[in-house]
């Protein structure tokens, strides 16, 4: 029993690092910028598709591909914000929600056309050989996913806490007017935040291709899960999003392992309902003082 439980825990952490990366990106776009982004899963898959184009089709080195994907998807996110989100800033929730729905319909079907409808794996340079630690099995690819996830999360943390841009972001989302008054270009911060969120989802997409396979149909469930995690983590709380992601991964794994795999996806939504009823500000957020 215990060995199985440990294996479930490790499985959960792997899934959880995907959730965490997705949610970290969405916490920026949805939590901080308040854009109900239904294209988040598509950004995720797009990361994998772009990586496939570079890594498998053009034969670019896998690690270099990661860098390229991050750069391209960052630019794509910035363009998306500039063209689609900025004109609707300050309008009803529904407007941005629908524009991102339009974007998601467009992206998913365009990807099916260009990438093809067949699932694909990335030519990642690690072996499929399992690494066995005691009773626990893990592979290089899975370890890599956890490591990249951790690196991306730490890098984001440093970016936000230590850099000029990070400070400008925090200032903008805490008190927009004051940020403008010290000279922060608030609109640009919004655009960069959106771009960062997009790139974050795209990294998860590359890992998806490296560890599993890339297929556009993954997008819808991924979007929903990311929303779930952001709520668990407390909307604007970035460390909370990471914790929420890992938590959901582990809970799902344990629930699937000991209760029912058929109902595995229910648990996240059930948690959302439960938490919003009793802790409306998320699991990891302090209650706002007032």
């Amino acid at each position, binding site marked *: 029993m215990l060995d199985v439980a440990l294996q479930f825990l490790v499985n959960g952490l792997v899934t959880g690092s995907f959730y965490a990366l997705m949610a970290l990106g969405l916490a920026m776009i949805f939590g901080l910028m308040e854009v109900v982004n239904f294209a988040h899963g598509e950004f995720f898959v797009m990361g994998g598709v772009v990586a496939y184009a570079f890594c498998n089709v053009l034969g670019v080195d896998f690690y270099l591909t990661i860098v390229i994907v991050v750069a391209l998807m960052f630019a794509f996110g910035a363009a998306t914000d500039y063209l689609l989100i900025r*004109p609707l800033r300050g309008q009803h929730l529904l407007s941005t929600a*629908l*524009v991102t729905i339009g*974007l998601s319909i*467009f992206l998913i079907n365009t990807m099916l056309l260009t990438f093809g409808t067949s699932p694909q794996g990335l030519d990642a340079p690690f072996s499929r050989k399992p690494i066995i630690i005691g009773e626990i099995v893990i592979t290089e690819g899975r370890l890599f996913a956890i490591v990249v996830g951790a690196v991306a999360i730490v890098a984001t943390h440093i970016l936000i806490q230590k850099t000029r841009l990070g400070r400008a972001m925090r200032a903008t989302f805490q008190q927009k007017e004051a940020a403008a008054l010290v000279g922060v270009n608030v609109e640009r911060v919004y655009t960069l935040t959106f771009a960062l969120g997009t790139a974050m989802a795209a990294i998860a997409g590359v890992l998806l291709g490296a560890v599993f396979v890339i297929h556009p149909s993954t997008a819808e469930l991924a979007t*929903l899960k990311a929303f779930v995690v952001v709520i668990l983590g407390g*909307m604007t709380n970035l460390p909370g999003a990471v914790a929420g992601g890992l938590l959901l991964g582990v809970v799902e794994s344990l629930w699937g392992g000991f209760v029912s795999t058929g109902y595995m996806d*229910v648990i996240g939504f059930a948690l959302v*309902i439960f938490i919003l009823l009793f802790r*409306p500000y998320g699991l990891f957020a302090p209650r706002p003082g007032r």
Partner: protein
Amino acid sequence: MSSQRLPLLALLAAAIALPLVFRGEYFMHLMIMVLFYTVLASSLNIVTGYIGQLSLGHAAFFGIGCYAAAMLTLDAGWSVWTAMIIAGLAAAVAGFVIGYITLRLDGHYFVLITLAFAEVLRLVVINWEEVTRGPLGFPNIPRPSIVLGGEVMVDFSSKTHFYYVALVLVVITLWAKHRFVYSAMGRASVAIRENPRLAQSVGIDPFYYSMVAFVLGAFFAGLSGWFYAHYISYVGPDVYGFGFMVTMLIMIAVGGRGTIVGPVIGAAIITIVVEELRFAREIRLSLFGLLLMLSILFFPRGLVSVPDLLRRRGWWPGAGKTGTA
């Protein structure tokens, strides 16, 4: 609130005459789908347009209507017409329960908790095979029939019969919505949407009216589910899915939310556009996504605002009177 009654009556007259003028089952089918989507989108519009809350769980009420209709007529052997009432009521009761829990939350949280409810329901429907027949759902849902004095008067073998039933549903929905909107009730709802604090200060209870609108929306979503079940004759778990939700949202946003004709226009335009884009084959949905983005960017208040926009530029006759309720 300028009355929208006259244009609606004109449309109704046109709709009654339509099957007499144009024949063709495919055309009839599309018109039926337009009418069906009108009911469905209008039901969401009561919540999103008039209370201003973005409910992503609305497909659940539609799904409940579908399943109630299927289970009552197939498993319990009830009459199709009794099932209609129950389908609406079942959805309304679900609306009450879910609304009671979710309407206390606001904005983003409301969006997500309603979505979570719909997803939980969908997954339960897939997994609880004993009751819901699982992913395969209910085939061969009977057609309605009208029996008078032991004789079948209307057997619904023709699309025209369904068309008129759908039209009656549309009329009931729009009438109920019209009454709602142009009553103390509707004014209270709009007041809540426009300024909840101020609404409270003149004695309006936001929770109560959000609830009324939510339950009313659920009821009509349930009715449309009933119609869908008997018209398509098959329901599966996809009726709870995000697909229908997105379709409704697109329809009210493209048509114009918070208006009575908006969802009518949206249902018609979207049904027709999706159909007309068939020529585009594989890129059909890509084009659709693109059109949707453009429509939201250029007409954020929906197509009902087009005459206003044109008038402001002097391209449309009439004085520049703005304001839709």
